[in-house]
Protein backbone atom coordinates (compact mmCIF):
# COMPACT_ATOMS: atom_id res chain seq x y z
CA UNK A 1 0.00 0.00 0.00
CA UNK A 2 2.58 2.56 1.15
CA UNK A 3 6.21 1.97 0.22
CA UNK A 4 8.82 4.45 1.36
CA UNK A 5 12.52 3.97 0.74
CA UNK A 6 15.51 6.17 1.55
CA UNK A 7 13.51 9.36 1.76
CA UNK A 8 15.63 12.49 2.11
CA UNK A 9 14.74 16.11 2.61
CA UNK A 10 16.77 19.05 3.83
CA UNK A 11 16.01 22.71 4.41
CA UNK A 12 18.23 25.76 4.50
CA UNK A 13 17.92 27.89 7.60
CA UNK A 14 19.43 31.36 7.94
CA UNK A 15 21.01 31.86 11.34
CA UNK A 16 22.51 34.88 13.06
CA UNK A 17 23.30 36.08 16.54
CA UNK A 18 21.21 38.64 18.39
CA UNK A 19 21.81 42.34 18.05
CA UNK A 20 21.68 45.23 15.63
CA UNK A 21 25.21 44.89 14.25
CA UNK A 22 24.57 41.22 13.51
CA UNK A 23 21.36 42.12 11.72
CA UNK A 24 23.17 44.65 9.52
CA UNK A 25 25.91 42.13 8.82
CA UNK A 26 23.28 39.60 7.79
CA UNK A 27 22.06 42.00 5.11
CA UNK A 28 25.28 41.45 3.23
CA UNK A 29 26.41 38.07 4.27
CA UNK A 30 24.14 35.37 5.49
CA UNK A 31 25.09 32.13 7.09
CA UNK A 32 22.96 29.22 6.17
CA UNK A 33 22.77 25.88 7.78
CA UNK A 34 21.49 22.74 6.15
CA UNK A 35 18.92 21.01 8.29
CA UNK A 36 18.43 17.40 7.41
CA UNK A 37 14.78 16.92 8.18
CA UNK A 38 14.89 13.42 6.77
CA UNK A 39 18.17 11.71 6.03
CA UNK A 40 17.23 8.13 5.27
CA UNK A 41 13.78 6.88 6.11
CA UNK A 42 12.30 3.65 4.80
CA UNK A 43 9.21 1.73 5.82
CA UNK A 44 6.20 0.06 4.32
CA UNK A 45 2.65 0.05 5.53
CA UNK A 46 -0.04 -2.40 4.48
CA UNK A 47 -3.69 -1.79 3.76
CA UNK A 48 -5.90 -1.30 6.80
CA UNK A 49 -2.99 -0.76 9.17
CA UNK A 50 -3.07 1.87 11.86
CA UNK A 51 0.38 3.32 12.46
CA UNK A 52 1.58 5.81 15.03
CA UNK A 53 4.41 7.94 13.69
CA UNK A 54 6.24 9.43 16.64
CA UNK A 55 9.38 11.29 17.54
CA UNK A 56 10.46 14.43 19.39
CA UNK A 57 9.83 17.94 18.07
CA UNK A 58 11.68 18.57 14.85
CA UNK A 59 12.23 14.89 14.15
CA UNK A 60 10.76 15.11 10.65
CA UNK A 61 7.29 13.73 11.28
CA UNK A 62 5.36 16.50 9.59
CA UNK A 63 7.82 16.59 6.71
CA UNK A 64 7.15 12.91 6.10
CA UNK A 65 3.40 13.43 6.18
CA UNK A 66 3.73 16.34 3.76
CA UNK A 67 5.80 14.26 1.37
CA UNK A 68 3.37 11.36 1.57
CA UNK A 69 0.46 13.66 0.85
CA UNK A 70 2.14 15.15 -2.20
CA UNK A 71 2.76 18.64 -0.84
CA UNK A 72 6.53 18.50 -0.55
CA UNK A 73 9.00 17.14 -3.05
CA UNK A 74 11.79 15.19 -1.34
CA UNK A 75 15.44 15.63 -2.30
CA UNK A 76 15.97 11.93 -2.73
CA UNK A 77 14.47 8.53 -2.20
CA UNK A 78 11.32 6.85 -3.42
CA UNK A 79 7.77 6.65 -2.29
CA UNK A 80 4.80 4.88 -3.77
CA UNK A 81 1.28 4.93 -2.45
CA UNK A 82 -1.13 2.68 -4.28
CA UNK A 83 1.45 2.59 -7.06
CA UNK A 84 1.57 6.37 -7.43
CA UNK A 85 4.40 8.76 -6.64
CA UNK A 86 2.65 11.46 -4.59
CA UNK A 87 4.56 14.55 -5.74
CA UNK A 88 4.60 13.51 -9.37
CA UNK A 89 0.94 12.56 -9.71
CA UNK A 90 -0.36 14.97 -7.13
CA UNK A 91 -3.87 15.47 -8.45
CA UNK A 92 -4.58 11.79 -8.97
CA UNK A 93 -2.94 10.82 -5.69
CA UNK A 94 -4.83 13.25 -3.46
CA UNK A 95 -8.18 11.94 -4.64
CA UNK A 96 -7.54 8.83 -2.60
CA UNK A 97 -6.17 10.30 0.58
CA UNK A 98 -7.53 12.40 3.42
CA UNK A 99 -5.37 14.73 5.47
CA UNK A 100 -5.94 16.52 8.76
CA UNK A 101 -3.35 19.02 9.95
CA UNK A 102 -4.24 19.59 13.58
CA UNK A 103 -2.76 23.07 13.59
CA UNK A 104 -4.43 24.37 10.46
CA UNK A 105 -7.97 24.64 9.21
CA UNK A 106 -9.42 23.55 5.91
CA UNK A 107 -12.88 24.94 6.57
CA UNK A 108 -13.91 28.30 5.19
CA UNK A 109 -13.79 30.73 8.03
CA UNK A 110 -16.80 32.89 7.28
CA UNK A 111 -19.49 30.49 6.15
CA UNK A 112 -21.32 27.62 7.88
CA UNK A 113 -19.46 24.31 7.94
CA UNK A 114 -21.94 22.68 5.59
CA UNK A 115 -20.94 25.15 2.85
CA UNK A 116 -17.34 23.96 3.15
CA UNK A 117 -18.55 20.37 2.92
CA UNK A 118 -20.54 21.17 -0.22
CA UNK A 119 -17.44 22.70 -1.75
CA UNK A 120 -15.42 19.58 -0.97
CA UNK A 121 -18.12 17.47 -2.56
CA UNK A 122 -17.65 19.40 -5.80
CA UNK A 123 -13.86 19.41 -5.60
CA UNK A 124 -13.65 15.66 -5.15
CA UNK A 125 -16.60 15.02 -7.49
CA UNK A 126 -18.22 12.85 -4.83
CA UNK A 127 -21.31 11.06 -6.05
CA UNK A 128 -24.56 12.15 -4.49
CA UNK A 129 -25.43 8.84 -2.84
CA UNK A 130 -21.95 8.42 -1.40
CA UNK A 131 -21.89 11.99 -0.15
CA UNK A 132 -25.23 11.66 1.59
CA UNK A 133 -24.22 8.36 3.12
CA UNK A 134 -20.89 9.65 4.39
CA UNK A 135 -22.37 12.90 5.62
CA UNK A 136 -25.10 11.27 7.66
CA UNK A 137 -22.71 8.72 9.07
CA UNK A 138 -20.09 11.30 10.02
CA UNK A 139 -22.77 13.57 11.44
CA UNK A 140 -23.97 10.79 13.66
CA UNK A 141 -20.59 9.48 14.81
CA UNK A 142 -18.97 12.85 15.40
CA UNK A 143 -22.19 14.50 16.62
CA UNK A 144 -22.13 17.28 14.09
CA UNK A 145 -25.83 17.95 13.55
CA UNK A 146 -25.78 21.18 15.58
CA UNK A 147 -22.45 22.33 14.18
CA UNK A 148 -23.03 22.04 10.46
CA UNK A 149 -25.07 25.22 10.21
CA UNK A 150 -22.67 27.28 12.34
CA UNK A 151 -20.00 29.49 10.74
CA UNK A 152 -16.54 27.98 11.30
CA UNK A 153 -15.28 31.06 13.12
CA UNK A 154 -17.79 30.49 15.90
CA UNK A 155 -16.84 26.89 16.64
CA UNK A 156 -14.72 25.89 19.62
CA UNK A 157 -11.46 24.07 18.91
CA UNK A 158 -12.91 20.66 19.75
CA UNK A 159 -15.98 21.25 17.64
CA UNK A 160 -13.87 22.48 14.78
CA UNK A 161 -11.55 19.51 14.94
CA UNK A 162 -14.49 17.13 14.68
CA UNK A 163 -15.64 19.02 11.59
CA UNK A 164 -12.09 18.98 10.17
CA UNK A 165 -11.93 15.21 10.51
CA UNK A 166 -15.33 14.82 8.90
CA UNK A 167 -14.24 17.12 6.06
CA UNK A 168 -11.26 14.94 5.27
CA UNK A 169 -13.38 11.79 5.10
CA UNK A 170 -16.26 12.90 2.89
CA UNK A 171 -14.71 11.32 -0.20
CA UNK A 172 -14.02 7.93 1.47
CA UNK A 173 -10.23 8.06 1.22
CA UNK A 174 -8.28 4.83 1.43
CA UNK A 175 -5.51 6.43 3.44
CA UNK A 176 -5.97 8.98 6.20
CA UNK A 177 -3.08 11.12 7.43
CA UNK A 178 -3.62 12.69 10.81
CA UNK A 179 -1.01 15.24 11.85
CA UNK A 180 -1.58 15.87 15.55
CA UNK A 181 -5.35 15.51 15.42
CA UNK A 182 -5.89 15.77 19.16
CA UNK A 183 -3.72 18.82 19.80
CA UNK A 184 -5.41 21.19 22.24
CA UNK A 185 -8.52 19.07 22.70
CA UNK A 186 -10.18 18.46 26.04
CA UNK A 187 -10.58 14.96 27.44
CA UNK A 188 -14.07 14.39 26.11
CA UNK A 189 -13.25 15.54 22.58
CA UNK A 190 -10.06 13.48 22.58
CA UNK A 191 -11.93 10.34 23.50
CA UNK A 192 -14.58 11.02 20.87
CA UNK A 193 -11.97 11.54 18.16
CA UNK A 194 -10.07 8.38 19.14
CA UNK A 195 -13.20 6.30 19.28
CA UNK A 196 -14.18 7.52 15.87
CA UNK A 197 -10.81 6.79 14.26
CA UNK A 198 -10.86 3.28 15.68
CA UNK A 199 -14.29 2.64 14.32
CA UNK A 200 -13.37 4.04 10.91
CA UNK A 201 -10.37 1.75 10.70
CA UNK A 202 -12.38 -1.28 11.78
CA UNK A 203 -15.33 -0.77 9.48
CA UNK A 204 -13.91 0.87 6.37
CA UNK A 205 -10.43 -0.68 6.54
CA UNK A 206 -9.02 2.81 6.13
CA UNK A 207 -5.25 2.93 6.51
CA UNK A 208 -4.44 5.49 9.19
CA UNK A 209 -1.12 7.19 9.78
CA UNK A 210 -1.04 9.34 12.83
CA UNK A 211 1.56 11.71 14.25
CA UNK A 212 1.12 12.88 17.79
CA UNK A 213 2.91 13.77 20.98
CA UNK A 214 0.08 12.35 23.03
CA UNK A 215 1.14 8.82 23.89
CA UNK A 216 -2.37 7.96 24.98
CA UNK A 217 -3.42 8.49 21.38
CA UNK A 218 -0.85 5.90 20.40
CA UNK A 219 -1.87 3.50 23.16
CA UNK A 220 -5.50 3.77 22.16
CA UNK A 221 -5.06 3.61 18.43
CA UNK A 222 -1.86 2.31 17.01
CA UNK A 223 -1.00 -1.35 16.81
CA UNK A 224 2.28 -0.36 15.24
CA UNK A 225 4.67 2.44 16.07
CA UNK A 226 7.36 4.00 13.91
CA UNK A 227 9.84 6.12 15.83
CA UNK A 228 12.03 8.66 14.07
CA UNK A 229 14.55 11.14 15.41
CA UNK A 230 16.95 13.54 13.72
CA UNK A 231 15.60 12.39 10.39
CA UNK A 232 16.40 8.72 10.91
CA UNK A 233 14.18 5.78 11.52
CA UNK A 234 15.02 4.36 14.92
CA UNK A 235 12.41 1.78 15.70
CA UNK A 236 9.57 0.08 13.89
CA UNK A 237 7.44 -2.20 16.02
CA UNK A 238 4.78 -2.36 18.71
CA UNK A 239 4.48 -0.44 21.96
CA UNK A 240 5.92 -3.47 23.71
CA UNK A 241 9.00 -3.20 21.54
CA UNK A 242 9.43 0.32 22.81
CA UNK A 243 9.39 -0.72 26.43
CA UNK A 244 11.69 -3.61 25.57
CA UNK A 245 14.11 -1.13 24.00
CA UNK A 246 14.56 0.70 27.30
CA UNK A 247 15.27 -2.57 29.07
CA UNK A 248 11.85 -3.90 29.79
CA UNK A 249 11.57 -2.04 33.11
CA UNK A 250 8.26 -0.58 32.04
CA UNK A 251 6.75 0.05 35.41
CA UNK A 252 5.40 3.55 35.01
CA UNK A 253 3.97 5.93 32.52
CA UNK A 254 4.40 5.47 28.82
CA UNK A 255 5.50 9.12 28.55
CA UNK A 256 8.45 8.40 30.83
CA UNK A 257 9.37 5.31 28.89
CA UNK A 258 9.40 7.35 25.73
CA UNK A 259 11.46 10.15 27.28
CA UNK A 260 13.96 7.54 28.39
CA UNK A 261 14.06 6.16 24.88
CA UNK A 262 14.65 9.62 23.35
CA UNK A 263 17.54 10.04 25.80
CA UNK A 264 18.91 6.63 24.97
CA UNK A 265 18.93 7.43 21.25
CA UNK A 266 20.25 10.91 22.02
CA UNK A 267 17.55 12.65 19.97
Amino acid sequence: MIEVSHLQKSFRVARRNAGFSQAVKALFHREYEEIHALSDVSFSIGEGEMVGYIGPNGAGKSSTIKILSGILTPDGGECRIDGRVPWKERKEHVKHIGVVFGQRSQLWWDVPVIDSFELLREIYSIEDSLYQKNLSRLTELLELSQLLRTPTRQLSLGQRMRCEIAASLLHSPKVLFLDEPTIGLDAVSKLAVREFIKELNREEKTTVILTTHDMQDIEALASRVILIGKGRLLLDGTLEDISAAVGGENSGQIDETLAQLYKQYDI
Partner: protein
Amino acid sequence: MKKYFSFFRLRFVTSLQYRIAALAGLSTQFVWGALLILAYRAFYQAEPEAFPMSFQATATYVWLQQALLALFQPWGFENDIFESVQSGTVAYELCRPVSVYGMWFSRTAARRISSVLLRCIPIFLIAPFLPAPYGLAGPAGAPAFFWALFSLVLGSLVAVAFVQIVYFSTFFTIATEGVRALSASLVEFLQGAVIPIPFLPDGVRQVVELLPFASMLNAPLRIYSGDISGAFLYRVVALQLFWLLALVLVGKLMERCAMKRTVLLGG
Protein backbone atom coordinates in the same frame (compact mmCIF):
# COMPACT_ATOMS: atom_id res chain seq x y z
CA MET B 1 -14.90 23.22 -14.82
CA LYS B 2 -17.68 22.46 -12.37
CA LYS B 3 -15.17 22.26 -9.55
CA TYR B 4 -13.88 25.72 -10.26
CA PHE B 5 -17.37 27.06 -10.52
CA SER B 6 -18.09 25.84 -7.00
CA PHE B 7 -15.21 27.93 -5.64
CA PHE B 8 -16.85 30.75 -7.45
CA ARG B 9 -20.18 30.02 -5.79
CA LEU B 10 -18.79 29.69 -2.30
CA ARG B 11 -16.86 32.95 -2.65
CA PHE B 12 -20.04 34.60 -3.82
CA VAL B 13 -21.96 33.32 -0.81
CA THR B 14 -19.17 34.49 1.48
CA SER B 15 -19.41 38.06 0.28
CA LEU B 16 -23.13 38.04 0.98
CA GLN B 17 -22.47 36.80 4.51
CA TYR B 18 -21.51 40.28 5.70
CA ARG B 19 -24.55 42.42 5.12
CA ILE B 20 -23.28 45.76 6.38
CA ALA B 21 -20.18 45.55 4.19
CA ALA B 22 -22.38 44.87 1.17
CA LEU B 23 -24.62 47.83 1.96
CA ALA B 24 -21.69 50.16 2.55
CA GLY B 25 -20.22 49.10 -0.78
CA LEU B 26 -23.46 50.06 -2.51
CA SER B 27 -23.09 53.74 -1.74
CA THR B 28 -19.28 54.19 -1.69
CA GLN B 29 -18.71 54.15 -5.42
CA PHE B 30 -21.56 56.52 -6.14
CA VAL B 31 -20.28 59.18 -3.78
CA TRP B 32 -16.69 58.73 -4.91
CA GLY B 33 -17.66 59.07 -8.56
CA ALA B 34 -19.59 62.26 -7.86
CA LEU B 35 -16.60 63.77 -6.04
CA LEU B 36 -14.24 62.97 -8.92
CA ILE B 37 -16.55 64.51 -11.49
CA LEU B 38 -16.86 67.71 -9.45
CA ALA B 39 -13.06 67.89 -9.24
CA TYR B 40 -12.74 67.44 -13.03
CA ARG B 41 -15.38 70.14 -13.53
CA ALA B 42 -13.12 72.65 -11.78
CA PHE B 43 -10.22 71.73 -14.09
CA TYR B 44 -12.38 71.88 -17.22
CA GLN B 45 -13.74 75.33 -16.28
CA ALA B 46 -10.20 76.64 -16.10
CA GLU B 47 -9.22 75.51 -19.61
CA PRO B 48 -11.47 73.03 -21.47
CA GLU B 49 -9.23 72.99 -24.60
CA ALA B 50 -6.34 71.50 -22.66
CA PHE B 51 -8.13 68.18 -22.30
CA PRO B 52 -8.04 65.39 -24.89
CA MET B 53 -11.55 64.20 -23.94
CA SER B 54 -14.75 66.24 -23.70
CA PHE B 55 -16.15 66.79 -20.22
CA GLN B 56 -19.07 64.51 -21.05
CA ALA B 57 -16.66 61.73 -22.10
CA THR B 58 -14.64 62.16 -18.93
CA ALA B 59 -17.79 61.99 -16.77
CA THR B 60 -18.86 58.80 -18.55
CA TYR B 61 -15.38 57.36 -18.03
CA VAL B 62 -15.52 58.14 -14.31
CA TRP B 63 -18.99 56.64 -13.86
CA LEU B 64 -18.08 53.45 -15.67
CA GLN B 65 -14.82 53.22 -13.78
CA GLN B 66 -16.64 53.55 -10.48
CA ALA B 67 -19.38 51.10 -11.49
CA LEU B 68 -16.83 48.49 -12.58
CA LEU B 69 -14.27 49.32 -9.91
CA ALA B 70 -14.42 45.93 -8.21
CA LEU B 71 -13.43 44.17 -11.45
CA PHE B 72 -10.25 46.20 -11.83
CA GLN B 73 -9.52 47.15 -8.25
CA PRO B 74 -5.76 47.27 -7.74
CA TRP B 75 -6.24 46.00 -4.17
CA GLY B 76 -8.76 43.34 -5.19
CA PHE B 77 -6.70 40.42 -3.94
CA GLU B 78 -8.03 37.40 -2.15
CA ASN B 79 -6.19 38.17 1.06
CA ASP B 80 -6.82 34.68 2.39
CA ILE B 81 -4.45 33.43 -0.28
CA PHE B 82 -1.52 35.54 0.94
CA GLU B 83 -2.30 34.53 4.45
CA SER B 84 -2.47 30.85 3.58
CA VAL B 85 0.90 30.98 1.83
CA GLN B 86 2.46 32.77 4.76
CA SER B 87 0.96 30.60 7.47
CA GLY B 88 1.28 27.32 5.60
CA THR B 89 -2.44 26.62 5.45
CA VAL B 90 -1.84 26.41 1.72
CA ALA B 91 -0.89 22.80 2.54
CA TYR B 92 -4.56 21.96 2.48
CA GLU B 93 -5.05 23.50 -0.93
CA LEU B 94 -2.19 21.41 -2.24
CA CYS B 95 -3.90 18.21 -1.18
CA ARG B 96 -6.98 18.84 -3.29
CA PRO B 97 -7.37 17.22 -6.69
CA VAL B 98 -7.53 20.57 -8.49
CA SER B 99 -4.99 22.90 -9.99
CA VAL B 100 -3.98 25.63 -7.57
CA TYR B 101 -3.93 28.14 -10.40
CA GLY B 102 -7.49 27.33 -11.42
CA MET B 103 -8.67 27.40 -7.84
CA TRP B 104 -7.17 30.82 -7.10
CA PHE B 105 -8.24 32.21 -10.45
CA SER B 106 -11.88 31.32 -9.87
CA ARG B 107 -11.81 32.57 -6.28
CA THR B 108 -10.42 35.94 -7.33
CA ALA B 109 -12.81 36.25 -10.24
CA ALA B 110 -15.74 35.35 -7.96
CA ARG B 111 -14.75 37.92 -5.39
CA ARG B 112 -14.58 40.62 -8.02
CA ILE B 113 -17.76 39.68 -9.85
CA SER B 114 -19.86 39.28 -6.72
CA SER B 115 -18.72 42.65 -5.50
CA VAL B 116 -19.20 44.42 -8.85
CA LEU B 117 -22.74 43.11 -9.16
CA LEU B 118 -23.67 44.78 -5.91
CA ARG B 119 -21.77 47.98 -6.43
CA CYS B 120 -22.69 48.81 -10.01
CA ILE B 121 -26.44 48.86 -9.38
CA PRO B 122 -26.89 52.36 -7.89
CA ILE B 123 -24.63 53.90 -10.51
CA PHE B 124 -26.43 52.28 -13.44
CA LEU B 125 -29.79 53.23 -11.91
CA ILE B 126 -29.00 56.89 -11.27
CA ALA B 127 -26.02 58.09 -13.31
CA PRO B 128 -27.68 57.87 -16.79
CA PHE B 129 -30.41 60.25 -15.63
CA LEU B 130 -28.18 63.00 -14.30
CA PRO B 131 -28.21 66.33 -16.28
CA ALA B 132 -26.26 66.29 -19.53
CA PRO B 133 -22.51 66.79 -19.07
CA TYR B 134 -22.48 65.20 -15.62
CA GLY B 135 -24.25 61.94 -16.31
CA LEU B 136 -23.33 58.58 -17.81
CA ALA B 137 -23.74 58.96 -21.58
CA GLY B 138 -24.84 56.12 -23.86
CA PRO B 139 -22.38 54.08 -25.92
CA ALA B 140 -21.03 55.34 -29.23
CA GLY B 141 -23.34 52.87 -31.03
CA ALA B 142 -24.53 49.30 -30.88
CA PRO B 143 -21.30 47.77 -32.29
CA ALA B 144 -19.24 49.86 -29.88
CA PHE B 145 -21.38 48.60 -27.02
CA PHE B 146 -20.89 44.94 -27.87
CA TRP B 147 -17.18 45.35 -28.54
CA ALA B 148 -16.91 47.11 -25.18
CA LEU B 149 -18.70 44.22 -23.49
CA PHE B 150 -16.35 41.70 -25.09
CA SER B 151 -13.36 43.83 -24.20
CA LEU B 152 -14.67 44.14 -20.65
CA VAL B 153 -14.65 40.36 -20.24
CA LEU B 154 -11.14 40.16 -21.67
CA GLY B 155 -9.96 43.05 -19.51
CA SER B 156 -11.30 41.50 -16.31
CA LEU B 157 -9.58 38.23 -17.15
CA VAL B 158 -6.30 40.05 -17.81
CA ALA B 159 -6.64 41.76 -14.43
CA VAL B 160 -7.22 38.45 -12.63
CA ALA B 161 -4.38 36.77 -14.52
CA PHE B 162 -2.08 39.54 -13.38
CA VAL B 163 -3.10 39.03 -9.75
CA GLN B 164 -2.22 35.33 -10.07
CA ILE B 165 1.37 36.31 -10.75
CA VAL B 166 1.33 38.39 -7.57
CA TYR B 167 -0.01 35.39 -5.61
CA PHE B 168 2.59 32.98 -6.86
CA SER B 169 5.41 35.44 -6.34
CA THR B 170 4.70 35.25 -2.62
CA PHE B 171 5.92 31.65 -2.66
CA PHE B 172 9.36 33.11 -3.33
CA THR B 173 9.39 36.24 -1.19
CA ILE B 174 7.96 35.20 2.23
CA ALA B 175 6.87 38.79 3.05
CA THR B 176 4.00 39.86 0.83
CA GLU B 177 3.40 43.54 1.60
CA GLY B 178 6.05 44.77 -0.81
CA VAL B 179 4.80 42.85 -3.81
CA ARG B 180 1.23 43.79 -3.01
CA ALA B 181 1.92 47.50 -2.65
CA LEU B 182 4.11 47.61 -5.75
CA SER B 183 1.67 45.77 -7.97
CA ALA B 184 -1.31 47.75 -6.70
CA SER B 185 0.29 51.10 -7.45
CA LEU B 186 1.47 49.93 -10.86
CA VAL B 187 -2.00 48.70 -11.76
CA GLU B 188 -3.72 51.77 -10.38
CA PHE B 189 -1.74 54.27 -12.40
CA LEU B 190 -0.96 52.34 -15.57
CA GLN B 191 -4.47 51.04 -16.20
CA GLY B 192 -5.83 54.57 -16.17
CA ALA B 193 -7.57 54.53 -12.81
CA VAL B 194 -5.94 57.71 -11.48
CA ILE B 195 -6.34 59.65 -14.72
CA PRO B 196 -7.48 58.23 -18.07
CA ILE B 197 -4.56 57.14 -20.26
CA PRO B 198 -5.32 59.73 -23.03
CA PHE B 199 -4.45 62.41 -20.44
CA LEU B 200 -0.84 61.21 -20.33
CA PRO B 201 1.75 63.19 -22.36
CA ASP B 202 2.74 62.01 -25.83
CA GLY B 203 5.59 59.54 -25.84
CA VAL B 204 4.70 58.19 -22.40
CA ARG B 205 1.16 57.44 -23.54
CA GLN B 206 2.23 55.31 -26.52
CA VAL B 207 4.37 53.11 -24.29
CA VAL B 208 1.74 52.79 -21.56
CA GLU B 209 -0.85 51.75 -24.12
CA LEU B 210 1.23 48.70 -25.01
CA LEU B 211 1.59 47.48 -21.43
CA PRO B 212 -0.69 44.75 -20.02
CA PHE B 213 -2.25 47.27 -17.63
CA ALA B 214 -3.79 49.24 -20.50
CA SER B 215 -5.59 46.03 -21.47
CA MET B 216 -7.52 46.09 -18.21
CA LEU B 217 -9.70 49.12 -17.44
CA ASN B 218 -8.62 51.41 -20.26
CA ALA B 219 -9.69 49.32 -23.25
CA PRO B 220 -13.40 48.61 -22.58
CA LEU B 221 -14.14 52.12 -21.30
CA ARG B 222 -12.66 53.86 -24.31
CA ILE B 223 -14.28 51.44 -26.74
CA TYR B 224 -17.64 52.22 -25.12
CA SER B 225 -17.27 55.94 -25.68
CA GLY B 226 -16.00 55.51 -29.24
CA ASP B 227 -12.56 56.90 -28.42
CA ILE B 228 -11.12 53.59 -29.62
CA SER B 229 -12.66 52.51 -32.94
CA GLY B 230 -11.88 51.24 -36.44
CA ALA B 231 -8.52 49.60 -37.02
CA PHE B 232 -7.28 50.79 -33.62
CA LEU B 233 -10.12 48.80 -32.00
CA TYR B 234 -8.95 45.54 -33.53
CA ARG B 235 -5.42 46.24 -32.45
CA VAL B 236 -6.49 46.94 -28.86
CA VAL B 237 -8.60 43.78 -28.60
CA ALA B 238 -5.82 41.68 -30.13
CA LEU B 239 -3.42 43.14 -27.61
CA GLN B 240 -5.81 42.19 -24.80
CA LEU B 241 -5.92 38.61 -26.07
CA PHE B 242 -2.14 38.55 -26.29
CA TRP B 243 -1.67 39.80 -22.72
CA LEU B 244 -4.26 37.41 -21.36
CA LEU B 245 -2.42 34.49 -22.92
CA ALA B 246 1.00 35.75 -21.86
CA LEU B 247 0.01 36.45 -18.26
CA VAL B 248 -1.71 33.07 -17.84
CA LEU B 249 1.36 31.37 -19.25
CA VAL B 250 3.72 33.19 -16.89
CA GLY B 251 1.42 32.45 -13.95
CA LYS B 252 1.28 28.75 -14.81
CA LEU B 253 5.07 28.59 -15.09
CA MET B 254 5.42 30.26 -11.71
CA GLU B 255 2.93 27.78 -10.27
CA ARG B 256 5.05 24.91 -11.50
CA CYS B 257 8.25 26.34 -9.99
CA ALA B 258 6.47 27.17 -6.75
CA MET B 259 5.12 23.64 -6.35
CA LYS B 260 8.61 22.21 -6.76
CA ARG B 261 10.22 24.34 -4.14
CA THR B 262 7.44 24.67 -1.64
CA VAL B 263 8.67 24.75 1.91
CA LEU B 264 6.10 24.66 4.65
CA LEU B 265 7.27 26.01 7.92
CA GLY B 266 6.37 24.75 11.34
CA GLY B 267 4.22 21.89 12.51
